[in-house]
Structures are given as structure tokens and as C-alpha cells.
């Protein structure tokens, strides 16, 4: 799904075309949900995706088409996830949110299901900023400049966060884990 078409759908939806609004949701909802699974967690991703679309469609009137609609939508999803995490931080953590959920994410065709679980666990262990950069660029397939506009940071920051996420994943999944005495750099 190319950005130009998604943006065109958003503009038609803004001007009152409900069919275009439905198509806009249909072609973007997997990515929104996917992002929210990783920024929050799978148990709340559906609820947060719904909240994302309620906010996005409700403020569509003010969307001017300056940025690609997909980046605009994903940055709203990112704010919804951040608001959720802030709300949750104020509440005592319930045991349910800590429970292991071993359902594979989606139907990973042609891949070892155990591998996808391993990937998911390794991703969940990443620093949140690195995980966000990695999910946006690797799982959602955004370019670095698009990921930068969604995350609200410079491209160079995305570049270094992706590299550090890769390094962390290499350490967690790679066949040659780096030697233990390496100083671990944060950033």
C-alpha cells in the first residue's frame, strides 16, 4: 500500500467520504495494531487501535495533507500508546498484564513459530526507544525519514537506535554473541 494512495483516502475521508474512511482504516489497521502490540502489549493493542482511529478520524477535519497520512496516523498511535503507558504507570500493575502470552503474532507462514516467539521476546526486552525505531523500520517497513517523523526525532537518532536495537538482538539471537567484557553503551 503506497503512501500516496493512503493520503488520498484520508483527504477524501476528511471531506466526508465515508467509504474512503472505511478503506483508510482497512488498509492501515494492521500496521497500527502491529505498532501498538510492540509499543504497549498484545492484550491492549486492539483497544488502543480503536482509540487511535477514534482520535484520528475525529481530528481528520484538521488534517491538511502536509505529511503522509500513514505517518500522521502512526504518530497518533504512538501518542495513544504513550498515554496508555502513563495511565498504567499510575495504577498498580495487575498480574494479568505480566502473564506470558505465547500466541504467535499473526500467522508466520514459512517461519519456525518458535523463532517468531524468540524474536518477540528479544524485541520486548529492548529499550523502548530502540524498540520503537526497530519496529517502525523493520516490522512496518518505514523509511528512516518516515520513522523520524512518526517518532518526532532526527533521522540520525533513528539510524543509531536501529543499529543499537540490532546489536541488542544480535546479542540475544545471534550465533556469535559478543564477548561478555564489552562495555554496554546506552543511548
Amino acid at each position, binding site marked *: 500500500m503506497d503512501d500516496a494512495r493512503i493520503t488520498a483516502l484520508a483527504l477524501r*475521508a*476528511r*471531506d*466526508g467520504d*465515508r467509504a474512503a*474512511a472505511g478503506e483508510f482504516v*482497512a488498509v492501515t*489497521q*494492521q500496521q*497500527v*495494531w*502491529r505498532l501498538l502490540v510492540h509499543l504497549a502489549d498484545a492484550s491492549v*493493542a*486492539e483497544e488502543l*487501535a*480503536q482509540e487511535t*482511529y*477514534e482520535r484520528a*478520524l475525529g481530528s*481528520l*477535519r484538521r488534517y*491538511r495533507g*502536509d*505529511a503522509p497520512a500513514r505517518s*500522521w496516523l502512526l*504518530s497518533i498511535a504512538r501518542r495513544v500508546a504513550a498515554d496508555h503507558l502513563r495511565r498504567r504507570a499510575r495504577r498498580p500493575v495487575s498480574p494479568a498484564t505480566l502473564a506470558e502470552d505465547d500466541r504467535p*503474532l*499473526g500467522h*508466520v*507462514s514459512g*517461519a519456525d513459530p518458535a523463532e517468531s516467539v524468540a524474536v518477540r521476546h528479544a524485541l520486548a526486552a529492548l529499550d523502548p526507544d530502540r524498540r520503537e525505531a526497530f519496529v517502525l523500520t*523493520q*516490522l*512496518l517497513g518505514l523509511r*528512516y*525519514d518516515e520513522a*523520524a*517523523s512518526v517518532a*518526532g*526525532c*532526527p*533521522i*540520525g*537518532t533513528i*539510524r*543509531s*537506535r*536501529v*543499529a543499537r536495537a*540490532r*546489536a541488542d*538482538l*544480535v546479542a540475544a*539471537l*545471534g*550465533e556469535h554473541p*559478543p564477548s561478555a567484557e564489552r*562495555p554496554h*553503551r546506552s*543511548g
Partner: protein
Amino acid sequence: MRPVDDQHGMEWDRCDRCREAMSAALDGEAAKDAAAEQAAVDAHLAGCPDCRAWQQDAAHVTAITRRARTGLATGGPDLVARVVDHAPGPRARWRGTAARAGLAAVGVAQATIGLVSLLGAVTHAHAMTDPLMVLGAGIAHATHESAAWNLALGVAFLAGALWSRHLAGLLPALGAFIAVLAVVSGLDLVAGRVDPARVATHLLLVAGFVLGLAVVRTVPRPGPGPTPGARWWRRDERGAPDGHAPAVADRWERESDVA
């Protein structure tokens, strides 16, 4: 001789930058000086077995996550039916179109009034003796001025109906004009200095102002030219450890700075 820790730190820093460049290359995101960066990476790899091993591992991890990406196209809930009612309704489109059409009609009427009074003023100017000069302008010239202003407002309404993003800038000036005109028209009506029919033509300005507001609110349609307030992207000073310029963000910033 430098302390061992510093050497180790520098070595690690060089590895870090090499790995960052290799990571970007895996994503097809070459830096601006791609050739120079590739040369630096190659030179470093020749002398660093750790980074050579890392390159293989990173490619392996990337292959795993790419495979995951292709498998992740499904699995989420279908939200269309649940959220589509939050989208702007068909009335939004109708309201926007109606407001534009109305504004265009008001623009034509206003420009016609301006044109007619301009022609009338020009043809009558020679017959006038101009007994009264106010602030350096005779009645004939004052009439020319007001006719030109009426014509210009008609053109502005028409242009605003076509290019709505320029409309917002017109509204404060127009609002002030209408407010002052309303006060002086009221005084002149009471004193019998003006024909009520003439004052009635000013209602076109009020209609244009209201319709202009409606157009600005309902159809912020993107078009050529800068958009005021487009800076939804904000420069984030937290990051950028290596000073990479955010090319796309710069473009958006420049657009809104021009606006």
C-alpha cells in the same frame, strides 16, 4: 602513551560507528557520503574480526525479522465497522462545497458592484467641480478609492473560494473593515448622509466574511504554497549523537518558516 581505557573506548566508538553504518546499509539507508562511509567501513572491517562477525549476525537477525514482517500482514482485529462513524460525515463535504460556491457568488457580486461604481465614478469625474476637499482628496478621488477597494474585495473572495489556504490571512483585515464600516454606516444613516440601498450593499461584505470563515473551517484543502502552522514535526534535541541532518524535517520546517 595513552591510558588503556581511552584506547579501548576509542576502539569501541569506532566499532560502534562502523556497526551503525552497516546497519543502515542493511536497510538501504545510505548516508549522504555513502562512498566515503563504505570505504571507512571496509577499512575498519579489514582489521576488526569482531565487526566482521557482527556483520554476519546482523544480516542473520535482519533476515529473521524480515521473514517475520512478511508473516505479520494479518492477525489484528477488523475495526472498520467500529470506528468509521467517527469520520466526518457526508455533510462535511456538502457544507464545504456550498460555502465555496457561496463565497464565489458573493465575490462575483462584490466585484460587479465595484466595477459599476468605478465606471460611474470615472464618467462623472469630469462633470464634478469638487467643491469639497477632504485630507487631500476630492469627492471624485474618494469615490475612485472606495470603488477600487470594493472591486479588490470581490477579487479576494473569488480567489479565496478557489485557493482557500490564502483566505485565512484575509479575514482579520476584512473583519476590522466590516466593524468600522458598520459603525460609520450607522452614524451616516441616522444623519441621513447615505442612501439605505447603498448601506445594504455592504451586507455582501458580511456574507463574504461569514462564508470565508465557513470555508476556512470546513475545507482546509491542501494546495500549492506554504501552510501556516505546518510544523507538526518538532526538532528533537535529545538525540542526534552524530549530527545527521534530518533532511525531510528541514523541508517541513522551512515551509512553515516561510508561511
